[in-house]
């Protein structure tokens, strides 16, 4: 079961990503329990988790935010493919960084990316899903963590 104190790892990972990669901090809201189908933005990077814990971590963001994020990263390619690349890389970075606390047996997949589509995943017994709201430069995104 995902405990609220474990969410701190993901909150810190998200904070760190924006501070370092985007060179501008994001405002991270209080995580809350997800009820009902997952809400997504235009692009979603999904990491499947296996090993000691099972589930998914996904980062979902609007195109507008990703465009500005790319600019901050000195990119000038704002194509659909680059958006997909970025959202997958964000999800990968935050999930991989979580191994600092969860350990090596927190096995992360390569990212899969969805466009205007909700991730489908089955809930295992004891699996809880939390939404971590992210606000960056007037844009909103979400990190969703769903783990046994």
């Amino acid at each position, binding site marked *: 079961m995902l405990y609220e104190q474990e969410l701190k790892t993901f909150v810190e990972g998200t904070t760190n990503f924006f501070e370092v990669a985007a060179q501008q901090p994001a405002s991270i809201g209080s995580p809350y329990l997800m009820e009902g189908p997952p809400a997504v933005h235009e692009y979603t990077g999904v990491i499947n988790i296996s090993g000691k814990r099972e589930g998914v971590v996904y980062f979902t963001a609007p195109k507008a935010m990703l465009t500005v994020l790319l600019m901050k990263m000195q990119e000038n390619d704002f194509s659909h493919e680059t958006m997909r690349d*970025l959202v997958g890389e964000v999800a*990968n970075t935050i999930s*991989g*960084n979580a*191994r*600092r606390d969860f*350990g090596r047996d927190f096995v*992360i997949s390569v990212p899969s990316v969805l466009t205007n589509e909700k991730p489908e995943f089955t809930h295992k017994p004891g699996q809880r899903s939390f939404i971590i709201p992210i606000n960056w430069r007037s844009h909103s995104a979400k990190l969703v963590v769903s783990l046994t």
Partner: protein
Amino acid sequence: MSSNGSPTSGNGKRSLKLMIVDDSNIMRRRIERSQQFEELEVVGTAGDGEEALELFKRTDPDVVTMDLTMPRMDGIECIGRLVALKPAVRILVVSALADKATAVEAMERGANGFLNKPFTDRQLNEAIAEVMR
């Protein structure tokens, strides 16, 4: 050109060949753009371990930056294969995987340095300098 015929950079240092391996195009471009060493010439980039292996055989790089979580062949396996081909290659792992055990495993396979994502340009260049020492 140096006195022994090997290519040199503008400051007279021997040119070293750099290969960048990461499944993210953004990361490959970032590393290529951000590295500040005149003597490092990017000879190619690869999106997974299998592609990296083929590119390595063709281009014979001196320095490699290596992501770990990649499709087809992951970075840990790729490191072992590259070092077997060329023991003198210098490999800097650039990965989001932040647990110590992974860093240890990478070094045991033959990597020379480990840099966690996300990173600043300064951190990248310091890490590259360290593996080139």
